[in-house]
Each structure stands twice: as C-alpha cells, then as structure tokens.
C-alpha cells in the first residue's frame, strides 16, 4: 500500500509520464533526464523551445509572490521576472487550505499584525489598518488596544483571513504580478552548461505546440509549498479496507458533510491532534452546537497530553494545560527577528536540529473564546479527552467508527460517528518530483532536519551554476539557519535575504534608507511600480 497524499490545488499529477510511448513534439528524452548539466544544443535536439528570462520563480504561491514583490520594489521590471505556476492567484492554495481547515475569510489567521505579505515593511500593520477602516468607535479602538496590550492583557492580535487576501490582491495589481505569470507545472530545474539554469515547464494540454517549454535564466527561486500532506496510515487503511471515505477525514480535506450531518442528527466526533487545526475544528463544532442548538459530543484524543508549563529550564518553559501546549505562533516570536533568529543563524548540524526540537512540537495559541468553549464542554460533559494513540480504526455498530486507542493502561475502544484527523503529516521532500530531481541531478542536499539545505542567503547549497544562483524558500527548506520560513513573515525575510544577495550580484538595487522610504511612499499611495 502506498501512502496517499491529500489533494491540493495545483498539486502534481504523480502518474504523469515523463515521455509518452508515441513521441510528442518537444518532450523530454531519456538522454536529457539522465544528464545532470544540459547544453542549449541538447534542448534544440529534443525540440524543446527555449525562452530567455533573467529570473524564474517556481510555485507561484505566497513565497513566490512576496519574492516578486520584493524584487519589483528593488527596481526589477515585471518583464524580467517569470512566475511558473498552476495557480490562478498566489493565495489560491493557501486560501483553499485555510478554508477547509475552518478559517473562512471572516475568521482570524495565526500570524501577527506586522506579518503583512502585501507590504514588505509591515507598516502600517494590519491592526492599524483595521482600526482606520472601522465604522464605529469601538471597532477603531479594539484592534489598537489589542496590539498594544498583546500578549499580556489580550491574546495576540491576528488579522482576518479576508483582510490578508484583499490586501494581497491590491499589491498584486500594483506590482503588475499577472504579467509575470506563465501557467503550467514545473517538472525540473537543471544547471546549464555555460552558466545559469533551465526550468522545464509542462504547460496545460493544448496551450503550447510542444509538450515542454524551457526557461533559460540566470536565477531561479523554488517555492513549491508543502511537498505533500499525508493521510496517516490507519486512516488510509480504514478507507481502503472498508471503502468508506466519508466518516474518517483529514482536516485538510473538504469535510463540510460532517458538519452538515451533525446539524441533522446528533452525533459524536472524534478529534485527533493538539495543534491549531484541532482548535479550529473544535471551534466550528462548538459554534455550530451553540448556534443551531445541537447535541454534538466531542471526544478528543491527545497523543501527548500537556498538563502545564513544560520545558528543560526556567529560561525555556512554554505554557500549557488541558492537553495543549500554548504558543502564539508556530514558533516562539523571536525567531522572526530577535534572539532566537540570531541564535539559530549561528548553529550547525545536530545542534541546530536539537534547537528546532526544543522550540518545536505541536502547539496552539491561547484564545479566550476557545478556552471558554472547552471549559463549558468539560463542565457539561460533552467535551471529553482521551490520552493515547489511535492504532486502528474499524467500522462499529449503526454506521459508527470504532477506534482502538493504545493508552497507558492498555487498549481502549472508543466509538464515534466521525473521526477528524487534525494532525498535519508533511511528506518527505523526495515525494515532490521537482525537489527529488534537485537532489538527484542538481547537487542539492538535505539539512540536519532532512529538508533542502539552504545557505543563510537561501541559496540552495551545492547547486551553483556561475554566474547563476538557485534559491529556495518555504516549508521545503525548514531546518535551515532561519526557523520561521514557512510563514508570511518568514517568506518575506527569505525574500529579503535573496534580494540582498541579488543586489550584491548587481541584479537589483539594494534597499537602503532612501529607496526604501521612497518605495514605501509609493506603496502608501497605491502607485503602480
């Protein structure tokens, strides 16, 4: 049984054949596939057309967007930047994942006020902008008071998902992003004999006369997001053995049918996981319970149950309780610019991996509304927790599912109408075809955490093709000198490092005091650049 990935917008077709049995024009050849470094001649022979562009970014999600934004602000014209992607807009994939995991546009995200992917300066922050677009005095003061007193008197301020998307859309138009986009799936990036890289794009069927197109560029940036999100083996076994995809779901899959059925007849939901996704799903279940007067019961299975503050010393103690580990964002706040950023930047090898482990682990923010909901659930008995690991899922009586939970005191059986798995298991980078190709043919290697090994500049170590550079950012590079890579602000920090490196190479202007201030002023007046 092969483990299955959860489908996402723009995810690759794993079955796609490298070459068709009957040759099609402009396709890859076994010779190309087996050769690490390509010449222009090899592509001519295969009939693959070559387009020249100075800079290619692969992925076209939020990582590509903030990088293009940065470079545009550093004076690179849109015509010099090429985005290769399957997505309609940079936030498509992100919006899909947030929506299915219960963050619709009106709900709040999990990043701070100054994590603004539409604005590289983080000023004015989302809280300030929310205040100034408020329609009432209360709505004016509330976000300001929130950022002022966070996280001491109030929970961290976080922006509404819709606010983030709308502001990105404005910036998308301002910088002329659409001009840079070429649609398709990127199969590989290879070094070019004589310098720079070839990026092979498979355009949508019928969109081009050849099956593949090559982009020849000096610089390439790879930001392909998650290599894949996996279903846990027991979930998949259940689905395959019992041919039932509806009762056992992962939170990153569309699962509205669960909430719909619960609104028609009472039921029990088993939740697995102690991260933010579990918090979201619980919120949705309890909001529905309150709003529609439902009788939903929740059984929450924790593998590790956190009872209170935890950590190796008084200087490293994270808050926790009722099963959860509490933390505002997915890493401690200072990884995006303070002490922890400075510290990890200096660490190598096992020491760095160890530091990641210390800061890591599943966690969720403390939010007053969530605390209140669960407290009520515990008091009224409809929210219960169980400590252990689900070993097997089998069909139970009357359309239910029975989980065999391995607990400290032995196996326990628990029954529910639905199981929502809220653990996010990321696939190995090798499962992403483009990343596997980088490992096998382009000299890329793994960092101490097993992902792509990048320099402090986000150059992919081992892939240099002078005078070209190959960069990577986002989740595929987690484990590097900067821990926060898979976040809005982290992707912007990576973009800054990349832009600084490119400025040193003479590709763009350095963002010094004068240029930065002038560009901000253009941004503030929404002037196109």
């Amino acid at each position: 049984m092969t483990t299955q990935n959860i489908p996402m917008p723009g995810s690759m077709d794993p079955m796609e054949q490298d070459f068709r049995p009957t040759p099609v024009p402009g396709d890859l050849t076994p010779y190309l596939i087996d050769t690490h470094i390509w010449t222009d001649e090899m592509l001519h022979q295969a009939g693959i057309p070559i387009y020249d562009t100075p800079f290619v970014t692969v992925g076209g999600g939020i990582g590509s967007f903030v990088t293009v934004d940065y470079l545009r602000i550093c004076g690179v014209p849109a015509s010099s930047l090429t985005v290769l992607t399957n997505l309609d807009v940079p936030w498509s994939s992100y919006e899909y994942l947030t929506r299915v995991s219960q963050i619709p546009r009106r709900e709040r995200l999990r990043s701070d006020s100054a994590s603004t992917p539409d604005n590289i300066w983080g000023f004015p922050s989302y809280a300030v902008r929310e205040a100034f677009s408020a329609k009432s005095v209360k709505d004016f003061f509330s976000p300001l008071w929130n950022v002022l007193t966070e996280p001491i008197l109030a929970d961290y301020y976080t922006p509404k998902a819709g606010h983030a998307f709308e502001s990105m859309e404005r910036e998308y138009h301002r910088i002329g992003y659409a001009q840079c986009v070429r649609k398709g799936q990127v199969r590989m990036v290879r070094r070019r004999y004589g310098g720079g890289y070839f990026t092979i794009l498979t355009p949508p069927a019928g969109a081009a006369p050849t099956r593949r197109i090559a982009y020849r560029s000096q610089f390439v940036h790879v930001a392909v997001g998650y290599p894949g999100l996996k279903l846990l083996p027991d979930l998949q076994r259940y689905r395959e053995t019992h041919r039932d995809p509806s009762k056992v779901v992962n939170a990153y899959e569309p699962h509205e049918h669960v909430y719909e059925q619960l609104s028609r007849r009472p039921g029990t939901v088993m939740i697995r996981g102690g991260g933010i996704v579990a918090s979201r799903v619980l919120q949705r279940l309890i909001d529905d319970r309150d709003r529609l007067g439902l009788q939903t019961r929740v059984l929450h299975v924790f593998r590790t149950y956190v009872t209170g503050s935890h950590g190796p010393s008084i200087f490293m103690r994270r808050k926790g309780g009722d099963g959860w580990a509490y933390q505002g964002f997915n890493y401690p706040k200072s990884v995006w610019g303070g002490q922890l950023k400075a510290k990890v930047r200096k660490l190598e090898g096992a020491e760095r991996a160890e530091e990641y482990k210390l800061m890591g682990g599943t966690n969720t923010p403390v939010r007053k509304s969530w605390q209140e909901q669960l407290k009520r659930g515990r008091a009224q008995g409809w929210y219960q927790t169980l400590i252990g690991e689900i070993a097997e899922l089998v069909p139970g009586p009357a359309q239910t599912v029975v989980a065999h939970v391995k607990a400290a005191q032995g196996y326990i059986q628990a029954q529910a109408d639905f199981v929502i798995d809220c653990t996010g298991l990321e696939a190995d980078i090798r499962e992403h075809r483009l990343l596997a190709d980088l490992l096998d043919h382009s000299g890329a290697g793994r960092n101490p955490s097993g992902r792509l090994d990048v320099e402090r500049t986000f150059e992919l170590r081992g892939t240099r093709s002078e005078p070209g550079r190959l960069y990577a950012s986002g989740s595929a590079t987690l484990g590097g000198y900067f821990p926060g890579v898979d976040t809005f602000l982290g992707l912007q920090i990576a973009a800054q490092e990349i832009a600084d490196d490119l400025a040193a190479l003479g590709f763009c202007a350095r963002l010094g005091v004068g240029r930065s201030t002038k560009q901000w002023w253009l941004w503030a007046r929404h002037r196109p650049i």
Partner: protein
Amino acid sequence: MVPTLNGRIQTRIALLAVVGGLWTLLITPLLPDGAPLSASYRATFLVLLLVIVLGVLWELLYHFLQQFRWEKDWPTFFGLLTAINEGLLIWILIAVGVGPDVPGGSFLLHFISVWILTWLVANGPMRVPFIHWRFQGGRLI
C-alpha cells in the same frame, strides 16, 4: 521588533538621540520652567542624556528579564510600562540634586512626550527607512 541585547542598546541610543533630540529641540522653549532658554536647553538635554546612559543599564536588566519569557520577546506594552521605573529613577536623581535642575511639571512633560514619541516611532515608522532593522533584533549596524 523583537530585540536582541545589542539591538536594544543600538535602538535606544539612535532613537533617543535623533528623535528624542529633535523633539527636545522643539519642545524646550515651550516648557513652563520659567528659566532662560539656554538653561532650559542645558537641563532638557541633560535629562535626555541621562535617559540614554541609564537606559543602556536598564536594557541589561530588561534583557535578563526577557530570558524568562519562552518567546524571548518584549511585548509592546512593556515599552510603555518601563517609562515608569526609568522616569522615577531620573526624578529621584533630580530630587537628590544629582540630576539637572528642572521643575517637576517640565520634567514630566518633556520626559513623557519624548518617551511616547520614540515608542511610537519604534513600533512602526522605523521599519520604513530601515527595512532590515526588525529582522536583526533592532540592530542598525
């Protein structure tokens, strides 16, 4: 901005010297201290210097306290609260005659306005000209 020790000290000195200095230049003639302008300037700039010099010492303490925080951050709010202890210390120095000779009202007006202004600049506008600053723990060089 989430500070490192070095960043705290650099930001403190730069912001107080530049923003605080310009503000002191502007506001001193308006202070109700009844003294000749040159004496007023001497007093307010001495207060500013004290805030900078003692501030560097305070920053060492804040950095130590920050170590007890899991996130190793320094909430925005703390940036306002610390005006109380720092202001009190300077006031005590003035009262015992170690600091410059300024009446209480003028001191309060000057100190609080400088504090709020630099705090506001540090929490937003500073990021506009210095785009690397917030990612380097507040370091400028």
